[in-house]
């Protein structure tokens, strides 16, 4: 029985994707326990509601995180509209869902590239990001920005998309599918990739439920938990939607769930484009949130369920704005998944929760 060593891992480390610090208690190459610590990128953004009114704050909400930018602006706008009792035009809610699903495609492709890089398959990483560039070019054509879009505002959207642009979106997404199937085959069927992923970082279904995990991380352990089923925004108009789950509970299952979600998102976008109604895309909000009014909202971001809460105080500044991001709920799950793994698998397991520490700390 060897002695236990404590290895500090992060926040600066070549393989770590996010500024997270882990104290790994290691014994003979096996991790016995991992204690996470965050706080390196805390910017105190929630206190800025005191100096930015509810229209200006959406630009701060967007910049909490680069990858989840569309999700945060959308969730914030929906929550404040619920607070003030605003009805958003139908065309605007359809466009919001289209942009959000495209954001899910780009986020999952980014993640798959990082996962490939984590076990050393750099050319697969480059191919994933090359496909992701096509989605970013679509964002640029639709809204003017590649990552931070500023396309959503309280009351609707900033600009409308005409039928030609939406047809172009459909064309590009269909064109991605062929090469994407080849990449999926490399992830799911390649023997060297499978040996790094299968059986690594297992979290059983009961532990997943106990720890309150969310997102694809939980769905890979067969926890059916998806806000898109709860019917917020234009998601209620989808003809049928079943969350993708897997029963394997390991890293391979998490890769499989995310890979299939991209195809599901392409189907959702095509359905939305086919059924989008005509009409205005913006309704100017009048007045301010009432004193003591409270509203909450939830959104299925690429990483999981994100919960928003807004409270008004009668002025145009919100009293409190809370954004609870999915990675904060998954930190406990990550610490549990790291127990008993090999030291070489640590960064792979950290990556499979799809960490977004800048969202967690705001």
């Amino acid at each position: 029985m060897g002695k236990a060593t404590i290895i500090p891992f992060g926040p600066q480390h070549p393989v770590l994707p996010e500024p997270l610090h882990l104290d790994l208690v290691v014994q003979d190459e096996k991790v016995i326990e991992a204690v996470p610590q965050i706080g390196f990128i805390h910017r105190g953004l929630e206190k800025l509601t005191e100096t930015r009114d509810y229209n200006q704050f959406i630009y701060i909400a967007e910049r909490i995180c680069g990858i989840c930018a569309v999700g945060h602006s959308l969730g914030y706008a929906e929550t404040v509209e619920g607070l003030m009792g605003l009805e958003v035009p139908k065309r605007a809610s359809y466009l919001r869902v289209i942009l959000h699903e495209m954001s899910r495609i780009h986020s999952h492709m980014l993640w798959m590239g990082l996962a490939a890089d984590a076990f050393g398959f750099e050319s697969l990483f480059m191919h994933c990001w090359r496909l992701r560039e096509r989605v970013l070019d679509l964002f640029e054509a639709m809204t003017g920005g590649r990552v931070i879009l500023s396309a959503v505002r309280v009351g609707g959207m900033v600009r409308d998309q005409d039928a030609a642009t939406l047809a172009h979106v459909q064309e590009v997404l269909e064109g991605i599918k062929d090469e994407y199937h080849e990449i999926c085959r490399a992830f799911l069927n390649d023997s060297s990739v499978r040996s790094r992923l299968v059986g690594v970082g297992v979290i059983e279904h009961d532990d997943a439920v106990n720890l309150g995990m969310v997102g694809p991380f939980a769905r890979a352990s067969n926890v059916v938990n998806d806000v898109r089923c709860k019917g917020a925004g234009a998601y209620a108009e989808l003809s049928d939607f079943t969350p993708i789950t897997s029963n394997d509970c390991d890293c391979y299952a998490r890769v499989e769930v995310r890979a299939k979600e991209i195809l599901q998102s392409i189907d959702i976008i095509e359905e939305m484009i086919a059924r989008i109604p005509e009409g205005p895309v913006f309704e100017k909000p009048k007045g301010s949130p009432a004193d003591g009014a409270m509203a909450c909202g939830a959104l299925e971001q690429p990483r999981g369920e994100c919960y928003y809460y807004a409270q008004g105080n009668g002025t145009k500044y919100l009293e409190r704005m809370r954004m609870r991001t999915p990675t904060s709920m998954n930190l406990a799950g990550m610490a549990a998944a790291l127990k008993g793994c090999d030291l070489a698998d640590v960064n792979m397991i950290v990556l499979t929760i799809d960490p977004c520490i800048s969202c967690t700390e705001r």
Partner: protein
Amino acid sequence: MGSFKLGKMTLKSLFTKPSTVLYPFEEKPQPAGIKGHIENDITACTLCGTCSRVCPAGALIVDRKAGTWSIDHFRCVQCKSCVLNCPVPCLTMAPGYQKPAREISRETLQKPAPSPEELAAKEAAKKAKIEAAMKAKAAREAAK
């Protein structure tokens, strides 16, 4: 086969041109409506100050008395709030971002002083308005 699933894609990339663009020697084509910097048509601007109130970054300063409108391009986050809320509208977003520089600077535009014809036209309009108001008052008195 258990390995090398990426064979087709790897072979194809041997014969196609690279996906990257040799910037700065060639530039990617920019779509319409791309974000860039804010430009103001100062002759049409009424210096109402709405843009400086809605800007989330505090990049715009409007001085009504001195007749100046100034923007700090380094602070601007290209959110287009000013363009969307301008009542005239005189603000537009043009492509081209602020290039790196050695010092932070503001761009200030001065509203040109009105020409003699414009001043005369303003005086005439004011007089006509006062006359119309007096006439309406007289009509109200007569009706009573």
